[in-house]
């Protein structure tokens, strides 16, 4: 009984951590963008304020069952992904469900939420939502390839599909995987540009074109759910990258530092780039990232 209680508490703690970190990073991003654009920008905690505001709003209308369920799918997927990812190395509190944190499982569970969300967006009948969804899916096909190639390179090299195993490998060798297979890291980080959907890959939301795309018919608690799920996802992705390429983190501070530095890459890349068109976004990933993916695989097979 106590075990169950502990694990539930652990899960809640992980969630809170991911929520807070994700939200804060979002705030920092807004600030950074503003500073680059020579604006003052909102305070870093602005996201928390927004979230609270949205949460306290009452929703008045809905468009049907899928519409109601869409954000739920998103949240479920985010939470489950969070539960599976090893947040910290050898730490009881954040273990949750991550028996060994299977990478393939993780990749798939992370697509589950956006797809559910897409269905919810579809039922609203707003054409912008559907357009956004198609763009998002197309882009996903784009970045998934180099991303998977990077991961496969590692999986082949170390003959495992487990995140925990990969972390252990780095510990044993004493060298992070980013140095052992830099090509894989480059491919992964280029793919993650698309995964974060920041400029120039923000074709899904595209506020000026699509009026926020899939989110356009949502407000209040729906939007809150989506927002928090997005934050959690950001955290999950960053943690995953850290786990795989930077040997994971043994305590929270290390985790925050590593993830923050990683987070800055897509943010900075986005700041100076305008938005791509959809096919540009797709083919972007089939250029250099794909090449690095191949190099990574060749490197891990033959070296």
């Amino acid at each position, binding site marked *: 009984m106590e075990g169950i209680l502990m694990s539930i508490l652990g899960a809640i703690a992980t969630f809170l951590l991911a929520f807070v970190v994700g939200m804060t990073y979002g705030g920092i991003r807004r600030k950074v963008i503003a500073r680059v654009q020579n604006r003052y920008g909102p305070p870093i905690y602005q996201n928390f304020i927004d979230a609270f505001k949205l949460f306290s709003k*009452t*929703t*008045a*209308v*809905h*468009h*049907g*069952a*899928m519409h*109601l*369920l869409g*954000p*739920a799918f998103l*949240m*479920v997927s985010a*939470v*489950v992904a969070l539960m599976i990812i090893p947040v910290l190395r050898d730490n009881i509190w954040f273990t949750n*469900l991550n*028996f*060994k944190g*299977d990478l*393939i*499982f993780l990749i*798939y569970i992370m*697509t589950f939420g956006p*797809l559910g969300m*897409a*269905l919810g967006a*579809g*039922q609203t*009948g*707003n*054409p912008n939502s*559907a357009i956004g*969804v*198609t763009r998002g*899916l*197309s882009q*996903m*096909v*784009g970045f*998934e*390839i180099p991303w*998977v*190639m990077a991961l*496969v390179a590692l*999986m*082949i090299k170390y003959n*495992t*599909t*487990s995140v925990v195993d990969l972390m252990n490998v780095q510990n044993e060798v004493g060298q992070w995987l980013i140095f052992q297979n830099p090509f894989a890291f480059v491919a992964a980080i280029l793919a993650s540009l698309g995964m974060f959907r920041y400029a120039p890959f923000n074709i899904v939301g595209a506020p000026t074109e699509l*009026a926020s795309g899939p989110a*356009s018919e949502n407000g209040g*608690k729906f939007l809150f*759910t989506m927002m928090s799920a997005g934050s959690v996802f950001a955290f999950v992705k960053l943690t995953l990258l850290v786990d795989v390429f930077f040997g994971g983190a043994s305590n929270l501070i290390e985790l925050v530092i590593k993830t923050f530095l990683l987070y800055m890459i897509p943010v900075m890349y986005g700041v100076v780039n305008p938005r791509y068109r*959809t*096919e540009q976004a*797709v083919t972007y990933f089939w250029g250099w990232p794909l090449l690095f993916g191949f190099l990574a*695989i060749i490197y891990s*097979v033959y070296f």
Partner: protein
Amino acid sequence: MNIIILILILFFLGAIITAFSGKISALVQDILFLIVLVVPAVLFFTGVDMNTESIITFSQAQLTFGMTPLSYYFSLIVMGLAVLAGFYTVGQMNGKKRKGYYYLNYILSIGAMFGILMSKDFISFFIFWEIMTWASYLIVIYNGKNVQKIGIKYFVMSAIGAYAMLMAIVLIHSITGSFLITDLISEYTGMTQGMQLLIPALLLIGFGVKAALMPLHIWAPDAYSNAPMSYTAIFSGALSKMGIYGMVIVFLSLLSKVPEGALIRDIVAWLAAITAAISTLWAIKQDDAKRLLAYSSIGQLGYIIIGVAIGTPMSIIAGLFLAFMHGVFKSALFMVVGAVEKQTGTTDLTEVTGLIRKMPWTFLAALISIIALAGIPPLGGFVGKWMLYESLILSDHFMLVILVFFSSTAAFLYCYKILFGFFLGQEEKEWAHVKEAPAIMIVPMVILSISSIVLGTYPQLILKPINAAMMSFGLPDTYGNLWKESILFNKWGNQIALAPIMYGIMLVFVIVTIFLFFRNRSRTRYVTTKDISTSGEIIKEHENLTFSRGFFQPFLRAVEPVMKRQIDKYMLSFAKGVEDLFEFTRRIYNGNGQTYAIYAMIFLIILLMFGKNLLG
């Protein structure tokens, strides 16, 4: 009498009786149809075991029937789908013309599939294979649309496959002196190297046609999409699996025994991977739900073939598992499309919109099946894909992994397209009259979708027969210790259950759903899909804003170079060229009697010139 023979006779006599019972009354015919499907299934599950064997002797051949663990596994697919799709068929065919014709061929093809699975020798295998082919051919052309093009294409490809198989069979007979499959297996290693490669290659061509392996797939999109949907469920769900069944035998019992086999296996695996990738792209392009699913089927069969071809224990389990799952969810999806077609009269994804509130059960079935198809974790499709990736990575087929990953990611695109196209989007007046399909059609779909969920949670339900089948091929016993073959199951203990994850997901889902769904549903009111946020405009009732045309246009622009070349077109132009050549040969007969006489003289002179050779 032997029970297998009894079942076969039941099928074949039942088919004929059902066909003609339409003269009495339509209801009697429906009931007979169901009886003919259900009774053999019951007999099969209660009466047939591995020991039943029966032999019919002809002067030319000896027909041997019996069950192997592998055929038991495939029989589960065939029998289960036949019954479920049977009920669905009764609903779908209600009031249609030529029911007798349809029922006849339906039952015949089911009986033939059963016969294929029960055959232990190549002659009965081939006989049933051909019965299956022409019965399904007759159903493909049932709708009478573009019959010459589609039907002939299907039949020609089938004939190419069947004749390749027949050639292999007679070669086997000339070498081993027997038609028994077991004799081939036992004498295979002693053959010459040429035969060792030729026979499996020919057999693979035969099976590859039915399994829609590129470049033998060109019949599939048309045939799948033109048959009535209740049969396409069988077509894609069960009939294509006959190709897989044969491939399993070829790969496991023949090619794995010789070193040269690895080459063929790799070639087939690559072909299958390319099939999967390209057909997924084509599926994305389709605007017709039937064609979309047809291409999707080809792609999914590609995964299965990869699994079977790679040939590690894990990958074969993956392939067989996916074969079952594909049967389950793809049939459900074809049934969904059929239900939509029956209710709306069209399957064009750009026309039909917003059916979710009119056909909720259909939508539910579609949703679950799509999730399974996309391979998203809790459901059955994922388990198979997971094992497939795992085995590919472990056997160092890294480029195949990428291709498979690419196609299964791209599969999300068409998955979304089909759900969105039919069920989501704006609700239009045009479809306001649409009602939910009759219960007899809904129930099979729902049962199939529930099985997707159950099999995702308790994959051991079918891993057990798979394991038995694999052990019959001399592979190690993996049941209960599958984790030894795998690295991913290690810390999961020696359980192959996804249950903990499943429960975890369910728990979170329920919590969030309660939080959002039920709370919000009671507190909010429903507004129509016309009442949406636009930039200040008010949408009129007749305006349809649903985004349905050119759905993935940008994506398709991105992948255009790959899709420019179509094997289909090459083959058609080849066929046309050949026919033109024949137009030339027929000019030999120019109608002038004197010319014919001159031919005769030329013939005489040629014979005299080569007269010496006659002496031999």
